[in-house]
Protein backbone atom coordinates (compact mmCIF):
# COMPACT_ATOMS: atom_id res chain seq x y z
CA UNK A 1 0.00 0.00 0.00
CA UNK A 2 1.58 3.18 -1.17
CA UNK A 3 -0.70 5.40 0.92
CA UNK A 4 0.59 3.89 4.11
CA UNK A 5 3.82 5.82 3.92
CA UNK A 6 1.93 9.01 3.43
CA UNK A 7 -0.25 8.52 6.44
CA UNK A 8 2.68 7.51 8.58
CA UNK A 9 4.42 10.70 7.53
CA UNK A 10 1.33 12.63 8.34
CA UNK A 11 1.14 11.17 11.81
CA UNK A 12 4.78 11.49 12.81
CA UNK A 13 4.88 15.17 13.76
CA UNK A 14 1.93 14.71 16.09
CA UNK A 15 4.02 12.54 18.38
CA UNK A 16 5.05 15.29 20.74
CA UNK A 17 7.35 14.45 23.67
CA UNK A 18 4.30 14.44 25.88
CA UNK A 19 2.52 11.91 23.66
CA UNK A 20 5.68 9.82 23.57
CA UNK A 21 5.87 9.72 27.34
CA UNK A 22 2.21 8.85 27.42
CA UNK A 23 2.58 5.92 25.10
CA UNK A 24 5.64 4.76 27.01
CA UNK A 25 3.61 4.75 30.21
CA UNK A 26 0.85 2.91 28.41
CA UNK A 27 3.32 0.31 27.24
CA UNK A 28 4.65 -0.17 30.76
CA UNK A 29 1.15 -0.43 32.16
CA UNK A 30 0.26 -3.00 29.54
CA UNK A 31 3.31 -5.08 30.43
CA UNK A 32 2.33 -5.00 34.08
CA UNK A 33 -1.23 -6.00 33.13
CA UNK A 34 0.07 -8.91 31.06
CA UNK A 35 2.40 -10.07 33.79
CA UNK A 36 -0.35 -9.72 36.38
CA UNK A 37 -3.02 -11.64 34.50
CA UNK A 38 -0.72 -14.42 33.38
CA UNK A 39 0.77 -14.60 36.86
CA UNK A 40 -2.70 -14.86 38.38
CA UNK A 41 -3.69 -17.65 36.02
CA UNK A 42 -0.45 -19.53 36.69
CA UNK A 43 -1.24 -19.49 40.42
CA UNK A 44 -3.54 -22.31 39.40
CA UNK A 45 -0.43 -24.49 39.32
CA UNK A 46 0.06 -24.28 43.08
CA UNK A 47 -2.75 -26.59 44.23
CA UNK A 48 -1.92 -28.96 41.39
CA UNK A 49 1.75 -29.22 42.36
CA UNK A 50 0.92 -29.48 46.03
CA UNK A 51 -1.56 -32.22 45.27
CA UNK A 52 -4.33 -30.46 47.18
CA UNK A 53 -6.55 -30.56 44.11
CA UNK A 54 -6.52 -34.37 43.96
CA UNK A 55 -10.03 -35.62 44.51
CA UNK A 56 -12.34 -38.52 43.92
CA UNK A 57 -13.52 -38.14 40.33
CA UNK A 58 -16.65 -39.41 38.59
CA UNK A 59 -16.52 -42.80 36.86
CA UNK A 60 -14.36 -42.94 33.78
CA UNK A 61 -12.33 -39.81 34.52
CA UNK A 62 -9.21 -39.81 32.36
CA UNK A 63 -6.52 -40.01 34.98
CA UNK A 64 -4.02 -42.20 36.66
CA UNK A 65 -4.25 -42.46 40.43
CA UNK A 66 -1.61 -39.78 40.99
CA UNK A 67 -1.88 -37.70 37.88
CA UNK A 68 -5.01 -35.85 36.85
CA UNK A 69 -3.43 -33.68 34.18
CA UNK A 70 -5.21 -35.40 31.33
CA UNK A 71 -8.54 -35.03 33.06
CA UNK A 72 -8.07 -31.31 33.70
CA UNK A 73 -7.02 -30.83 30.10
CA UNK A 74 -9.88 -32.72 28.49
CA UNK A 75 -12.72 -31.43 30.69
CA UNK A 76 -14.45 -28.35 29.27
CA UNK A 77 -15.84 -27.48 32.73
CA UNK A 78 -19.45 -27.56 31.65
CA UNK A 79 -21.05 -29.59 34.42
CA UNK A 80 -23.23 -31.70 32.15
CA UNK A 81 -22.11 -34.67 34.27
CA UNK A 82 -23.40 -32.82 37.34
CA UNK A 83 -26.80 -32.36 35.76
CA UNK A 84 -27.55 -35.99 34.94
CA UNK A 85 -26.53 -37.69 38.16
CA UNK A 86 -29.66 -38.96 39.94
CA UNK A 87 -28.03 -38.85 43.37
CA UNK A 88 -26.33 -35.50 42.73
CA UNK A 89 -23.00 -36.96 43.69
CA UNK A 90 -20.99 -34.75 41.37
CA UNK A 91 -19.86 -31.23 42.20
CA UNK A 92 -17.60 -28.79 40.43
CA UNK A 93 -14.36 -27.70 42.04
CA UNK A 94 -13.79 -24.08 43.00
CA UNK A 95 -10.96 -21.58 42.67
CA UNK A 96 -8.84 -23.22 45.38
CA UNK A 97 -8.32 -26.19 43.06
CA UNK A 98 -6.39 -23.97 40.66
CA UNK A 99 -6.33 -25.49 37.21
CA UNK A 100 -8.91 -27.92 38.55
CA UNK A 101 -11.51 -25.16 38.72
CA UNK A 102 -14.79 -26.27 37.22
CA UNK A 103 -13.71 -29.91 37.08
CA UNK A 104 -16.14 -32.43 38.58
CA UNK A 105 -15.42 -34.29 41.80
CA UNK A 106 -17.24 -36.43 44.31
CA UNK A 107 -17.19 -35.99 48.06
CA UNK A 108 -17.93 -39.60 48.92
CA UNK A 109 -18.63 -39.07 52.59
CA UNK A 110 -21.29 -36.52 51.73
CA UNK A 111 -22.75 -38.30 48.73
CA UNK A 112 -21.10 -41.18 46.93
CA UNK A 113 -21.81 -42.47 43.45
CA UNK A 114 -23.95 -45.55 43.91
CA UNK A 115 -24.50 -46.15 40.18
CA UNK A 116 -28.19 -45.36 40.66
CA UNK A 117 -28.25 -44.31 37.05
CA UNK A 118 -27.38 -47.87 35.87
CA UNK A 119 -26.02 -46.62 32.56
CA UNK A 120 -23.19 -44.42 33.82
CA UNK A 121 -25.03 -41.34 32.72
CA UNK A 122 -22.30 -38.88 33.62
CA UNK A 123 -20.02 -40.75 31.25
CA UNK A 124 -22.62 -40.56 28.51
CA UNK A 125 -23.25 -36.86 29.14
CA UNK A 126 -19.64 -35.77 28.92
CA UNK A 127 -19.12 -33.95 25.60
CA UNK A 128 -15.34 -34.11 25.52
CA UNK A 129 -14.60 -37.64 26.61
CA UNK A 130 -13.02 -36.40 29.83
CA UNK A 131 -15.13 -39.16 31.30
CA UNK A 132 -14.07 -41.86 28.92
CA UNK A 133 -16.75 -43.43 26.82
CA UNK A 134 -14.84 -46.72 26.88
CA UNK A 135 -16.57 -47.51 30.13
CA UNK A 136 -19.61 -49.78 29.80
CA UNK A 137 -20.42 -51.01 33.29
CA UNK A 138 -19.89 -49.83 36.84
CA UNK A 139 -17.50 -52.72 37.43
CA UNK A 140 -15.15 -51.27 34.79
CA UNK A 141 -14.78 -48.11 36.83
CA UNK A 142 -11.50 -47.21 38.53
CA UNK A 143 -12.18 -44.30 40.83
CA UNK A 144 -10.05 -45.32 43.77
CA UNK A 145 -9.72 -48.20 46.19
CA UNK A 146 -11.36 -48.65 49.57
CA UNK A 147 -9.33 -49.31 52.72
CA UNK A 148 -10.37 -50.08 56.26
CA UNK A 149 -8.52 -47.08 57.63
CA UNK A 150 -9.54 -47.36 61.27
CA UNK A 151 -10.12 -51.04 62.03
CA UNK A 152 -10.46 -50.31 65.75
CA UNK A 153 -13.38 -47.98 65.09
CA UNK A 154 -15.18 -50.49 62.85
CA UNK A 155 -18.32 -51.78 64.57
CA UNK A 156 -18.00 -55.23 63.02
CA UNK A 157 -14.47 -55.52 64.35
CA UNK A 158 -15.79 -54.68 67.80
CA UNK A 159 -18.44 -57.32 67.41
CA UNK A 160 -21.15 -54.69 67.47
CA UNK A 161 -24.30 -54.40 65.44
CA UNK A 162 -26.08 -51.32 64.22
CA UNK A 163 -29.59 -50.07 64.75
CA UNK A 164 -31.14 -46.90 63.34
CA UNK A 165 -30.36 -44.43 60.63
CA UNK A 166 -26.88 -45.05 59.32
CA UNK A 167 -25.78 -41.42 59.31
CA UNK A 168 -28.32 -39.91 61.65
CA UNK A 169 -31.62 -38.18 61.00
CA UNK A 170 -30.08 -35.00 59.57
CA UNK A 171 -28.02 -36.66 56.90
CA UNK A 172 -29.16 -35.64 53.43
CA UNK A 173 -27.44 -38.27 51.28
CA UNK A 174 -29.33 -40.60 48.93
CA UNK A 175 -29.02 -44.23 47.98
CA UNK A 176 -31.07 -46.44 45.78
CA UNK A 177 -32.67 -49.29 47.65
CA UNK A 178 -33.93 -51.66 44.99
CA UNK A 179 -36.35 -53.27 47.40
CA UNK A 180 -37.89 -49.85 48.15
CA UNK A 181 -37.87 -48.22 44.75
CA UNK A 182 -36.23 -49.67 41.69
CA UNK A 183 -35.99 -46.31 39.92
CA UNK A 184 -35.52 -43.57 42.47
CA UNK A 185 -32.90 -43.09 45.15
CA UNK A 186 -34.27 -42.24 48.59
CA UNK A 187 -32.70 -40.50 51.60
CA UNK A 188 -30.55 -42.82 53.67
CA UNK A 189 -32.24 -41.39 56.74
CA UNK A 190 -35.58 -42.81 55.53
CA UNK A 191 -34.15 -46.30 55.62
CA UNK A 192 -33.16 -47.37 59.12
CA UNK A 193 -31.28 -50.60 59.74
CA UNK A 194 -31.32 -53.23 62.43
CA UNK A 195 -28.22 -55.40 62.18
CA UNK A 196 -26.76 -57.90 64.59
CA UNK A 197 -23.29 -57.34 63.20
CA UNK A 198 -22.69 -54.16 61.22
CA UNK A 199 -22.02 -54.94 57.61
CA UNK A 200 -23.28 -51.73 56.06
CA UNK A 201 -20.23 -51.23 53.86
CA UNK A 202 -20.59 -54.70 52.43
CA UNK A 203 -24.36 -54.64 52.27
CA UNK A 204 -24.58 -51.32 50.42
CA UNK A 205 -21.62 -51.78 48.10
CA UNK A 206 -23.13 -51.41 44.60
CA UNK A 207 -20.78 -54.03 43.20
CA UNK A 208 -21.80 -56.53 45.87
CA UNK A 209 -25.48 -55.71 45.37
CA UNK A 210 -25.14 -56.37 41.67
CA UNK A 211 -23.32 -59.64 42.26
CA UNK A 212 -26.10 -60.77 44.58
CA UNK A 213 -28.73 -59.86 42.00
CA UNK A 214 -26.89 -61.72 39.29
CA UNK A 215 -26.56 -64.79 41.46
CA UNK A 216 -30.23 -64.69 42.34
CA UNK A 217 -31.21 -64.35 38.70
CA UNK A 218 -28.90 -67.17 37.76
CA UNK A 219 -30.30 -69.59 40.33
CA UNK A 220 -33.83 -68.69 39.29
CA UNK A 221 -33.41 -69.36 35.61
CA UNK A 222 -30.48 -71.67 35.25
CA UNK A 223 -31.04 -72.08 31.53
CA UNK A 224 -30.50 -68.36 30.92
CA UNK A 225 -26.93 -67.17 30.59
CA UNK A 226 -25.94 -64.61 33.19
CA UNK A 227 -25.03 -61.94 30.70
CA UNK A 228 -28.59 -61.90 29.34
CA UNK A 229 -30.00 -61.39 32.80
CA UNK A 230 -27.50 -58.62 33.32
CA UNK A 231 -28.56 -56.94 30.14
CA UNK A 232 -32.14 -57.07 31.28
CA UNK A 233 -31.33 -55.04 34.34
CA UNK A 234 -29.12 -52.84 32.24
CA UNK A 235 -25.94 -53.75 33.97
CA UNK A 236 -23.34 -56.47 33.58
CA UNK A 237 -22.49 -58.80 36.39
CA UNK A 238 -19.30 -57.71 38.12
CA UNK A 239 -16.68 -60.39 37.60
CA UNK A 240 -15.08 -59.96 41.03
CA UNK A 241 -16.18 -59.24 44.55
CA UNK A 242 -15.46 -55.77 45.90
CA UNK A 243 -15.77 -56.27 49.63
CA UNK A 244 -16.59 -59.13 51.94
CA UNK A 245 -17.05 -59.63 55.66
CA UNK A 246 -14.56 -62.21 56.90
CA UNK A 247 -13.80 -63.72 60.26
CA UNK A 248 -10.47 -62.73 61.76
CA UNK A 249 -8.64 -63.96 64.81
CA UNK A 250 -7.17 -61.09 66.82
CA UNK A 251 -5.06 -63.30 69.04
CA UNK A 252 -7.35 -63.11 72.05
CA UNK A 253 -9.24 -66.19 71.03
CA UNK A 254 -12.34 -64.21 69.99
CA UNK A 255 -13.32 -64.39 66.36
CA UNK A 256 -14.30 -61.01 64.91
CA UNK A 257 -15.77 -60.01 61.59
CA UNK A 258 -13.74 -57.72 59.36
CA UNK A 259 -14.69 -55.95 56.12
CA UNK A 260 -12.03 -56.95 53.63
CA UNK A 261 -11.68 -54.98 50.41
CA UNK A 262 -11.31 -57.21 47.39
CA UNK A 263 -9.92 -56.88 43.91
CA UNK A 264 -13.27 -55.87 42.43
CA UNK A 265 -13.56 -52.61 44.37
CA UNK A 266 -14.10 -49.68 42.02
CA UNK A 267 -13.72 -46.94 44.61
CA UNK A 268 -17.22 -45.55 44.29
CA UNK A 269 -17.21 -44.52 47.93
CA UNK A 270 -20.57 -45.89 49.05
CA UNK A 271 -18.90 -47.78 51.89
CA UNK A 272 -17.29 -44.55 53.07
CA UNK A 273 -20.61 -42.78 52.79
CA UNK A 274 -22.67 -45.34 54.68
CA UNK A 275 -20.20 -46.21 57.44
CA UNK A 276 -22.04 -45.22 60.62
CA UNK A 277 -19.03 -44.34 62.74
CA UNK A 278 -17.73 -40.81 62.75
CA UNK A 279 -15.45 -40.34 60.93
CA UNK A 280 -15.79 -43.27 58.55
CA UNK A 281 -13.81 -46.36 59.48
CA UNK A 282 -13.51 -47.25 55.82
CA UNK A 283 -12.34 -44.70 53.27
CA UNK A 284 -11.53 -44.60 49.58
CA UNK A 285 -7.88 -44.04 48.72
CA UNK A 286 -7.23 -41.91 45.65
CA UNK A 287 -3.74 -43.18 44.98
CA UNK A 288 -4.80 -46.73 44.23
CA UNK A 289 -7.28 -48.57 42.08
CA UNK A 290 -8.13 -52.15 41.27
CA UNK A 291 -5.54 -52.23 38.48
CA UNK A 292 -2.64 -50.77 40.41
CA UNK A 293 -3.45 -53.00 43.40
CA UNK A 294 -3.39 -56.06 41.17
CA UNK A 295 -0.04 -55.11 39.72
CA UNK A 296 1.76 -54.62 42.99
Amino acid at each position, binding site marked *: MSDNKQSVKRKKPTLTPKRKAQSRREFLRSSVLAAGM*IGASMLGYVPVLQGTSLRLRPPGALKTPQDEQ*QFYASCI*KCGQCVQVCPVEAIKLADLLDGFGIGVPYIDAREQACDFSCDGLQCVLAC*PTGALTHDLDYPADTRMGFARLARPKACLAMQGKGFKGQARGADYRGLLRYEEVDRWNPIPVSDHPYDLEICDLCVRQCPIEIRITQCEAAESEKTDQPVARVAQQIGNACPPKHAITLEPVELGDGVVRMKPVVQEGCVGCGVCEMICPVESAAIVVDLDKNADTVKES
Partner: protein
Amino acid sequence: MSYIKDSIEHLIGNKIPRPSKQQQSAEVQAIYAGKKGKLSKADVEAVRHAHKSTFLSKWQKRRWATLIFVNMLFVASFYFDVQLVEGALTGARVMGFHFADLNAALQVALAYKHIVLNLVIGIVTVFLMWLLLGGRTFCSWVCPYHLLSEWAEYLHLWLVKKRVIKNHTFNRKVRIVFYVVFALLALITGYTVFETISPTGILSRALIYGPGLALVWVGLLLLFEIFYSRRAWCRYVCPIGVTYGVVGLLSPVRVKYNAEACHHEGDCRKVCLVPHVLELTIRSGARDVNQDVSSDCTRCGMCVDVCPTDSLTYEVKGLSKMLK
Protein backbone atom coordinates in the same frame (compact mmCIF):
# COMPACT_ATOMS: atom_id res chain seq x y z
CA MET B 1 -12.55 -6.84 1.28
CA SER B 2 -11.44 -3.82 3.27
CA TYR B 3 -13.94 -4.91 5.94
CA ILE B 4 -11.87 -8.02 6.56
CA LYS B 5 -8.61 -6.12 6.45
CA ASP B 6 -9.86 -3.47 8.87
CA SER B 7 -11.23 -6.14 11.15
CA ILE B 8 -7.95 -8.00 11.33
CA GLU B 9 -6.07 -4.77 12.05
CA HIS B 10 -8.49 -4.00 14.86
CA LEU B 11 -8.39 -7.49 16.29
CA ILE B 12 -4.62 -7.52 16.56
CA GLY B 13 -4.67 -4.05 18.09
CA ASN B 14 -3.40 -1.94 15.23
CA LYS B 15 -4.57 1.56 14.55
CA ILE B 16 -6.07 2.10 11.14
CA PRO B 17 -4.73 5.31 9.61
CA ARG B 18 -7.23 7.82 8.28
CA PRO B 19 -7.92 7.15 4.65
CA SER B 20 -6.10 9.41 2.23
CA LYS B 21 -8.02 11.34 -0.40
CA GLN B 22 -7.21 8.67 -3.00
CA GLN B 23 -8.73 5.99 -0.78
CA GLN B 24 -11.97 7.86 -0.36
CA SER B 25 -14.74 7.60 -2.87
CA ALA B 26 -15.67 10.81 -4.66
CA GLU B 27 -19.08 10.65 -3.07
CA VAL B 28 -17.84 10.62 0.50
CA GLN B 29 -15.35 13.37 -0.30
CA ALA B 30 -18.20 15.49 -1.57
CA ILE B 31 -20.13 14.87 1.64
CA TYR B 32 -17.17 15.88 3.81
CA ALA B 33 -16.56 18.96 1.69
CA GLY B 34 -20.22 19.93 1.92
CA LYS B 35 -20.09 19.85 5.71
CA LYS B 36 -17.13 22.24 6.04
CA GLY B 37 -18.06 25.05 8.34
CA LYS B 38 -21.75 24.21 8.10
CA LEU B 39 -22.14 22.50 11.46
CA SER B 40 -22.19 24.96 14.30
CA LYS B 41 -21.72 23.80 17.87
CA ALA B 42 -25.27 24.87 18.58
CA ASP B 43 -26.64 22.62 15.84
CA VAL B 44 -24.86 19.62 17.25
CA GLU B 45 -25.93 20.44 20.79
CA ALA B 46 -29.55 20.80 19.72
CA VAL B 47 -29.79 17.33 18.22
CA ARG B 48 -27.76 15.82 20.98
CA HIS B 49 -30.10 17.26 23.55
CA ALA B 50 -32.90 15.10 22.28
CA HIS B 51 -30.77 12.02 22.98
CA LYS B 52 -29.52 12.89 26.45
CA SER B 53 -29.60 9.48 28.06
CA THR B 54 -28.70 6.15 26.54
CA PHE B 55 -29.71 4.26 29.64
CA LEU B 56 -32.15 1.50 28.81
CA SER B 57 -32.86 2.67 25.33
CA LYS B 58 -34.20 0.37 22.64
CA TRP B 59 -31.31 -1.95 21.85
CA GLN B 60 -29.90 -1.96 25.33
CA LYS B 61 -33.26 -3.11 26.66
CA ARG B 62 -33.48 -5.88 24.09
CA ARG B 63 -29.91 -6.88 24.65
CA TRP B 64 -30.14 -7.06 28.44
CA ALA B 65 -33.36 -9.02 28.15
CA THR B 66 -31.73 -11.48 25.76
CA LEU B 67 -28.61 -11.84 27.87
CA ILE B 68 -30.56 -12.45 31.05
CA PHE B 69 -32.98 -14.78 29.28
CA VAL B 70 -30.24 -16.97 27.80
CA ASN B 71 -28.40 -17.27 31.10
CA MET B 72 -31.59 -17.91 33.00
CA LEU B 73 -32.51 -20.67 30.55
CA PHE B 74 -29.45 -22.55 31.76
CA VAL B 75 -30.31 -21.89 35.37
CA ALA B 76 -33.96 -22.77 35.03
CA SER B 77 -33.47 -25.93 33.07
CA PHE B 78 -31.03 -27.26 35.67
CA TYR B 79 -33.12 -26.08 38.58
CA PHE B 80 -36.35 -27.57 37.31
CA ASP B 81 -34.54 -30.42 35.58
CA VAL B 82 -36.30 -29.89 32.26
CA GLN B 83 -33.28 -30.85 30.13
CA LEU B 84 -33.83 -28.02 27.68
CA VAL B 85 -30.36 -26.58 28.01
CA GLU B 86 -27.82 -28.71 29.86
CA GLY B 87 -24.37 -27.63 30.87
CA ALA B 88 -22.89 -24.16 31.07
CA LEU B 89 -21.70 -21.54 28.61
CA THR B 90 -18.40 -23.36 28.11
CA GLY B 91 -20.16 -26.44 26.81
CA ALA B 92 -23.82 -27.32 26.60
CA ARG B 93 -26.43 -29.49 25.04
CA VAL B 94 -29.44 -27.64 23.76
CA MET B 95 -32.33 -30.03 23.26
CA GLY B 96 -29.85 -32.76 22.50
CA PHE B 97 -27.58 -30.73 20.21
CA HIS B 98 -24.00 -30.24 21.28
CA PHE B 99 -22.73 -26.71 21.79
CA ALA B 100 -19.16 -25.85 22.74
CA ASP B 101 -17.79 -22.38 23.36
CA LEU B 102 -15.17 -21.93 20.66
CA ASN B 103 -12.52 -20.56 22.97
CA ALA B 104 -13.07 -23.17 25.68
CA ALA B 105 -12.96 -25.87 23.01
CA LEU B 106 -9.72 -24.41 21.66
CA GLN B 107 -8.20 -24.50 25.15
CA VAL B 108 -9.24 -28.11 25.59
CA ALA B 109 -7.97 -29.09 22.16
CA LEU B 110 -4.59 -27.47 22.77
CA ALA B 111 -4.19 -28.85 26.28
CA TYR B 112 -5.55 -32.34 25.64
CA LYS B 113 -4.18 -32.55 22.08
CA HIS B 114 -7.06 -34.77 21.06
CA ILE B 115 -10.67 -33.99 20.17
CA VAL B 116 -13.60 -36.35 20.36
CA LEU B 117 -16.45 -36.29 17.88
CA ASN B 118 -19.01 -34.75 20.23
CA LEU B 119 -16.74 -31.78 20.77
CA VAL B 120 -16.27 -31.36 17.04
CA ILE B 121 -20.04 -31.36 16.62
CA GLY B 122 -20.34 -28.78 19.39
CA ILE B 123 -17.72 -26.56 17.79
CA VAL B 124 -19.34 -26.73 14.38
CA THR B 125 -22.82 -25.95 15.76
CA VAL B 126 -21.59 -22.93 17.67
CA PHE B 127 -19.44 -21.76 14.81
CA LEU B 128 -22.37 -21.90 12.42
CA MET B 129 -24.65 -20.22 14.91
CA TRP B 130 -22.36 -17.23 15.39
CA LEU B 131 -21.55 -17.18 11.73
CA LEU B 132 -25.23 -16.46 11.15
CA LEU B 133 -25.98 -14.33 14.17
CA GLY B 134 -22.81 -12.33 14.12
CA GLY B 135 -19.38 -12.84 15.61
CA ARG B 136 -18.76 -10.81 18.76
CA THR B 137 -22.50 -10.71 19.30
CA PHE B 138 -21.72 -13.40 21.88
CA CYS B 139 -19.93 -10.81 23.97
CA SER B 140 -22.69 -8.28 24.37
CA TRP B 141 -25.75 -10.47 23.97
CA VAL B 142 -24.77 -13.60 25.92
CA CYS B 143 -21.64 -13.24 28.08
CA PRO B 144 -22.71 -12.70 31.70
CA TYR B 145 -19.53 -10.86 32.54
CA HIS B 146 -20.37 -8.29 29.91
CA LEU B 147 -23.51 -7.29 31.76
CA LEU B 148 -21.78 -6.91 35.11
CA SER B 149 -18.96 -4.95 33.58
CA GLU B 150 -21.45 -2.75 31.76
CA TRP B 151 -22.92 -1.85 35.13
CA ALA B 152 -19.44 -1.34 36.54
CA GLU B 153 -18.79 0.94 33.60
CA TYR B 154 -21.62 3.28 34.61
CA LEU B 155 -20.04 3.52 38.03
CA HIS B 156 -16.63 4.12 36.52
CA LEU B 157 -17.92 6.89 34.26
CA TRP B 158 -19.71 8.54 37.13
CA LEU B 159 -16.55 8.49 39.23
CA VAL B 160 -14.56 9.94 36.36
CA LYS B 161 -17.12 12.67 35.93
CA LYS B 162 -16.90 13.47 39.62
CA ARG B 163 -13.12 13.58 39.19
CA VAL B 164 -12.63 10.97 41.87
CA ILE B 165 -10.60 8.77 39.55
CA LYS B 166 -8.92 8.86 36.18
CA ASN B 167 -9.29 6.29 33.46
CA HIS B 168 -6.12 4.43 32.47
CA THR B 169 -5.79 2.94 29.05
CA PHE B 170 -3.61 0.07 27.90
CA ASN B 171 -2.02 -0.72 24.61
CA ARG B 172 -4.59 -2.71 22.68
CA LYS B 173 -1.95 -5.01 21.27
CA VAL B 174 -1.72 -6.61 24.70
CA ARG B 175 -4.93 -8.51 23.97
CA ILE B 176 -3.34 -10.41 21.13
CA VAL B 177 -0.37 -11.12 23.38
CA PHE B 178 -2.81 -12.65 25.86
CA TYR B 179 -4.43 -14.67 23.12
CA VAL B 180 -1.15 -16.17 22.02
CA VAL B 181 0.20 -16.65 25.53
CA PHE B 182 -2.91 -18.46 26.76
CA ALA B 183 -2.90 -20.69 23.69
CA LEU B 184 0.77 -21.47 24.25
CA LEU B 185 0.26 -22.07 27.95
CA ALA B 186 -2.47 -24.60 27.20
CA LEU B 187 -0.22 -26.31 24.68
CA ILE B 188 2.88 -26.37 26.86
CA THR B 189 1.51 -26.97 30.35
CA GLY B 190 -1.27 -29.29 29.23
CA TYR B 191 -3.74 -27.43 31.44
CA THR B 192 -6.58 -25.18 30.34
CA VAL B 193 -4.87 -22.27 32.08
CA PHE B 194 -7.21 -19.55 30.84
CA GLU B 195 -10.26 -21.30 32.34
CA THR B 196 -8.78 -20.63 35.78
CA ILE B 197 -9.39 -16.90 35.42
CA SER B 198 -12.13 -16.71 32.79
CA PRO B 199 -14.97 -14.69 34.34
CA THR B 200 -17.32 -15.92 31.63
CA GLY B 201 -16.93 -19.55 32.68
CA ILE B 202 -16.80 -18.72 36.38
CA LEU B 203 -19.98 -16.67 36.27
CA SER B 204 -21.88 -19.11 34.12
CA ARG B 205 -21.04 -21.96 36.48
CA ALA B 206 -21.76 -19.86 39.55
CA LEU B 207 -25.21 -19.00 38.21
CA ILE B 208 -26.08 -22.59 37.42
CA TYR B 209 -24.30 -24.64 40.09
CA GLY B 210 -24.18 -22.11 42.89
CA PRO B 211 -21.72 -19.40 43.93
CA GLY B 212 -18.19 -20.13 45.01
CA LEU B 213 -14.92 -18.55 45.98
CA ALA B 214 -14.12 -17.89 42.33
CA LEU B 215 -16.57 -15.01 42.42
CA VAL B 216 -13.98 -13.13 44.46
CA TRP B 217 -11.79 -13.07 41.38
CA VAL B 218 -14.64 -11.72 39.27
CA GLY B 219 -15.21 -9.09 41.95
CA LEU B 220 -11.56 -8.06 41.77
CA LEU B 221 -11.78 -7.69 38.01
CA LEU B 222 -14.85 -5.50 38.38
CA LEU B 223 -13.15 -3.34 41.01
CA PHE B 224 -10.20 -2.94 38.67
CA GLU B 225 -12.56 -1.78 35.95
CA ILE B 226 -14.46 0.57 38.21
CA PHE B 227 -11.47 2.30 39.76
CA TYR B 228 -8.65 1.95 37.30
CA SER B 229 -9.45 1.17 33.71
CA ARG B 230 -12.75 1.28 31.85
CA ARG B 231 -13.92 -2.13 30.57
CA ALA B 232 -10.34 -3.40 30.90
CA TRP B 233 -11.07 -7.13 30.75
CA CYS B 234 -13.14 -7.02 27.57
CA ARG B 235 -11.00 -4.39 25.89
CA TYR B 236 -7.55 -5.65 26.62
CA VAL B 237 -7.60 -9.22 27.90
CA CYS B 238 -10.39 -11.61 26.99
CA PRO B 239 -9.41 -14.17 24.31
CA ILE B 240 -13.05 -15.19 23.93
CA GLY B 241 -13.72 -11.81 22.36
CA VAL B 242 -10.87 -12.31 19.91
CA THR B 243 -12.09 -15.76 18.93
CA TYR B 244 -15.56 -14.47 18.19
CA GLY B 245 -14.10 -11.42 16.47
CA VAL B 246 -12.53 -13.81 13.99
CA VAL B 247 -15.87 -15.54 13.44
CA GLY B 248 -17.31 -12.07 12.96
CA LEU B 249 -15.08 -11.61 9.92
CA LEU B 250 -17.50 -13.79 8.05
CA SER B 251 -20.78 -13.08 9.74
CA PRO B 252 -23.50 -11.02 8.08
CA VAL B 253 -24.78 -9.20 11.16
CA ARG B 254 -23.02 -5.86 11.38
CA VAL B 255 -23.36 -2.26 12.38
CA LYS B 256 -23.35 -0.01 9.34
CA TYR B 257 -22.14 3.57 9.24
CA ASN B 258 -23.55 6.12 6.85
CA ALA B 259 -21.51 9.33 6.60
CA GLU B 260 -24.22 11.51 5.13
CA ALA B 261 -26.11 12.90 8.12
CA CYS B 262 -23.32 12.30 10.67
CA HIS B 263 -22.34 15.23 12.89
CA HIS B 264 -18.98 13.74 13.82
CA GLU B 265 -19.56 14.86 17.37
CA GLY B 266 -18.52 11.46 18.71
CA ASP B 267 -21.29 10.43 21.07
CA CYS B 268 -21.05 6.93 19.65
CA ARG B 269 -17.37 6.66 20.51
CA LYS B 270 -18.10 7.71 24.07
CA VAL B 271 -20.51 4.84 24.74
CA CYS B 272 -18.69 2.15 22.81
CA LEU B 273 -16.89 -0.72 24.53
CA VAL B 274 -14.40 -0.81 21.66
CA PRO B 275 -14.31 2.81 20.44
CA HIS B 276 -11.47 2.20 18.00
CA VAL B 277 -13.92 0.48 15.67
CA LEU B 278 -15.85 3.75 15.40
CA GLU B 279 -12.92 5.88 14.35
CA LEU B 280 -14.44 5.92 10.90
CA THR B 281 -17.06 8.29 12.28
CA ILE B 282 -14.45 11.01 12.80
CA ARG B 283 -14.66 13.58 10.03
CA SER B 284 -12.95 12.25 6.89
CA GLY B 285 -12.50 8.90 8.62
CA ALA B 286 -14.67 6.88 6.28
CA ARG B 287 -13.71 5.61 2.86
CA ASP B 288 -17.22 5.26 1.57
CA VAL B 289 -20.59 6.78 2.22
CA ASN B 290 -21.67 3.44 3.66
CA GLN B 291 -19.13 1.38 5.52
CA ASP B 292 -19.43 -1.55 7.94
CA VAL B 293 -17.94 -1.23 11.40
CA SER B 294 -15.16 -3.81 11.78
CA SER B 295 -15.65 -7.20 13.40
CA ASP B 296 -14.10 -6.19 16.71
CA CYS B 297 -17.49 -4.53 17.29
CA THR B 298 -19.64 -6.50 19.71
CA ARG B 299 -22.86 -5.49 17.95
CA CYS B 300 -24.20 -4.21 21.24
CA GLY B 301 -26.08 -1.36 19.58
CA MET B 302 -25.06 1.32 22.08
CA CYS B 303 -23.95 3.55 19.23
CA VAL B 304 -27.13 2.80 17.32
CA ASP B 305 -29.09 3.90 20.37
CA VAL B 306 -27.09 7.04 20.98
CA CYS B 307 -26.56 8.40 17.48
CA PRO B 308 -28.79 11.46 17.10
CA THR B 309 -28.78 11.30 13.32
CA ASP B 310 -29.31 7.57 12.81
CA SER B 311 -26.00 7.33 11.00
CA LEU B 312 -25.35 3.99 12.68
CA THR B 313 -27.77 1.16 12.08
CA TYR B 314 -27.94 -2.59 12.35
CA GLU B 315 -27.58 -4.42 9.14
CA VAL B 316 -27.83 -8.00 8.03
CA LYS B 317 -25.74 -8.41 4.90
CA GLY B 318 -27.82 -9.68 2.04
CA LEU B 319 -31.02 -9.55 4.03
CA SER B 320 -31.33 -5.78 4.29
CA LYS B 321 -31.13 -5.49 0.55
CA MET B 322 -33.90 -7.99 0.20
CA LEU B 323 -35.99 -6.18 2.79
CA LYS B 324 -35.64 -2.81 1.11
